[in-house]
């Protein structure tokens, strides 16, 4: 059946101010969440969705306060359950543009089951994960993404938990859209969120976010201005995977794994550098890109974006079909169906 866009378009153009709420923002000064909020407020006008039809759903944690700070319908729910609640919102009314925001603990510890199943279903949800690798609201316990060996309040001798890589989790659950952004790069975050909103199906945007109180500089190894260009790569669809301050580094597949090379050294030319294809159905390369760290730059941008009929589309198609061909048109039909008899 024909693909539909269920969310009505706005009859006027919005600006960031239209989505800024009157509530006081209570995050710590300097928290990465402020930048993510700004990116989100810049994204909404670009989606061109009718304002009343935007619904923010969050769980519990610092990041989950976001519904108060955007002037849309909002549901600040309970720990870990944002995806499940959002699923019900979208199923009950597919004309709503549904946004989910969660932290790393909210989405991958207590809410891990809901996240992987939401991703597997590919319902039309826009999920943002604020990944600061710590439990911030409860003041500094290790989360499912805390680096191995890190000392936190609940791991005084270092964690012995191997962390999740959110990208691997999403792709392992057959995710159709996964992107990674940085809180300190708001324009990139806005671009990514805008593309996520346009994706038909579940989109997951992981934003590497700094909690300056309980896990300051968690991402500093890649975000510090001095090293950022050499330690990160912004992937662009159809373009070679080039990075570095001098734009002379690139990624290639050496038959065994990805490696970072320098153009002009050892006979490497631009033709040796891999081209990013975000729509490759096979998750292999996308998984490798999502996993990059250490000697390899951390991948940012849209890593995976493949077309697959969304759960929303399939559900509405089935509803429409059954409404047209179904035997029972009203309750009286159903009540009087099958074996019935009259008592005089």
């Amino acid at each position, binding site marked *: 059946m024909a693909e539909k866009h269920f969310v009505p378009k706005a009859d006027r153009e919005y600006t960031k101010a239209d989505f800024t709420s009157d*509530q006081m923002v209570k995050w710590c000064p300097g928290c990465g969440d402020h930048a993510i909020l700004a990116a989100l407020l810049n994204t909404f006008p670009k989606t061109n969705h009718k*304002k*009343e*039809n*935007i*619904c923010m*759903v969050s769980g*519990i944690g610092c990041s989950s306060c976001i*519904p*108060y700070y955007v*002037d*849309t*319908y*909002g*549901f*600040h*729910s*309970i720990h870990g*359950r944002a*995806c*499940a*609640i*959002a*699923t*019900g*919102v*979208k*199923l*009950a*009314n597919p*004309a*709503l543009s549904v946004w989910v925001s969660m932290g790393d603990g909210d989405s991958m510890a207590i809410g891990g*089951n*809901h996240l992987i*199943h939401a991703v597997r279903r590919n319902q039309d949800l826009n999920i943002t994960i604020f990944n600061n690798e710590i439990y911030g609201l409860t003041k500094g316990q290790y989360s499912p993404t805390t680096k191995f060996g890190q000392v936190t309040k609940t791991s005084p001798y270092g964690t012995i938990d191997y962390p999740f890589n959110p990208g691997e989790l999403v792709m392992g659950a057959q995710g159709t859209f996964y992107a990674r952004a940085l809180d300190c790069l708001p324009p990139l975050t806005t671009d990514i969120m805008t593309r996520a909103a346009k994706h038909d199906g579940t989109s997951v945007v992981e934003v590497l976010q700094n909690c300056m109180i309980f896990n300051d500089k968690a991402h500093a190894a890649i975000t510090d201005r001095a090293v950022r260009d050499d330690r990160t790569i912004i992937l662009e669809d159809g373009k070679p995977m080039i990075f570095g301050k001098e734009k002379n580094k690139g990624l290639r597949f050496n038959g065994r794994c990805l490696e970072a090379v320098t153009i002009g050294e050892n006979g490497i030319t631009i033709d040796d550098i891999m081209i990013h294809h975000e729509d490759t159905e096979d998750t292999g390369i996308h998984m490798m890109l999502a996993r990059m760290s250490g000697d390899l730059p951390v991948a940012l941008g849209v890593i995976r974006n493949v077309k697959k009929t969304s759960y929303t589309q399939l*559900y509405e198609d*089935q*509803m429409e079909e*059954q*409404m047209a*061909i*179904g*035997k*029972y*048109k*009203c*309750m*009286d039909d*159903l*009540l*009087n169906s*099958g*074996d*019935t*008899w*009259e*008592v*005089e």
Partner: protein
Amino acid sequence: MNPASLKSNLKWAKKGATVIVDIDTFTDEALEKAGYNENNHPFTDEMERAYTIIKAPVTSFTQRIGNEQGADKKTADRCRNMFALGIIFYATHKKLDQTFAYLERKFAKKPDVVALNKAVLTEGYEYADKLEVMHSHIFEIAQADKMEKGRYRNITGNVATAWGLLAASEKSGRRLFLGSYPITPATDVMVELAKHKSLGARVFQAEDEIAGICSAIGASYAGALACTSTSGPGLSLKSEALGLAVMVELPLVVVDVQRGGPSTGLPTKTEQSDLNQALYGRNGEAPVVVMAASSSANCFYWAFNAAKVALEHMTPVILLTDGYLGNGSQLFRIPKMADMPEIKPRLATPNDPNYRPFRRDPVTFAREWALPGMEGLRHRVGGLEKCPDGPLSTDPENHALMVANRQEKVNRVANYIPDQEVIGDPDAELLVVGWGGTSGALTLAVEEMNKEGKKVAYTHFNYICPLPKNTGDILRKYKKIVVCELNNGQFAGYLRTQFPECPMTQYNKIMGLPFEVGELKAEFERLLAK
């Protein structure tokens, strides 16, 4: 019966009962397997005196007919019940045509099966005719003259529950949403609703019980008549989210088809032991409306009613049924949708400048339902305490007010429910109290005792929280009260906290089985004699 079923079920037969056994199955091997032996034979003199035993060659006769018709042994064996049914039809003076017609419909595409079943049924009937003992054992089943005029069908409790929710959706004009996870014995509610997309039922099989209720809460926020169905352990998993539903004051129907607990307990057996969980199983002061169906067929009306109260009073409602009602099948007089009560959800008006998320109707205390997509009503809900205007508040007085208001809203549901009724002897010395799925056995026990001139009355509760307003007046009238339930006394405890002035005894059974009329009468007689 074969040896195994005789061994496990004979204890339920009254003395003097007629027992039909398939004598072909009483082989040495089967007897030993069932636990019979030389010292413990099934057909003792004592037993033969206590019961009329019809030792019918069910298997061999059925197989002979199967042979004649060219059916294989397996197919023939499947018809054995028809032979026994033929005996019962003879014993109860029933004609065979209705069953013939049923078989023709049921196996319309398999004429061989129809012919075989009909032949076996007839053979059983004729076999009984030739038995001398049958002529002194004819049972007259009176025509059901009390049946109200109308169109009838059979229905199970779980299907009736599903249909009641569908009916409420049609009446209220709100889309039906069910978010559930499979669990015995509640699964059939979801299975039934999944068939009815043409009636607009939106069913979502969630990844777990928590996602079941959370998706329903999300759907309710978005404007659906939202429901989740489960059984005991599932309700435990839903507790936190149910507290959220209380806090956000959204309509929600939670169907709990109770089973034996705790933990996995007895999944296929019935019990009424989730009452405390339904009443109290949440953190904080978190009142919800609790009601209970009392027959398989009236699950339809109680599900409808649960949805009506949820939508009109903006509150979660827990509907308690049980495995016995859910799987049991009963005659159901088909209602006309035009005769069903109206349901008026409390929808907010778009662009209402005075809309406040927790502004309440002065009569019901229900808030208004503003749906995402409505213009000019953007607001936020959530698990944190809010003030009536909507924003978050940790103000001490505000919290006290909001707690009181949420309780008052549930209390005021009592203004919309009918008075509690009492049946039986008006001068009764003993009042029998029951609730939920036990009404059949309790009513019958009291009626039989009234016929015997015993001064017993009966009151059956469907509204549990809040209770009907005249509950105290009723309880205070009787010197002796016995609260009967399939648990350790949860409803009795609940009544005692509200009416400490009324002395109550309790009669409980926790065997995964429904009440038997005999055991109830014995207990009531003991209490009367006291």
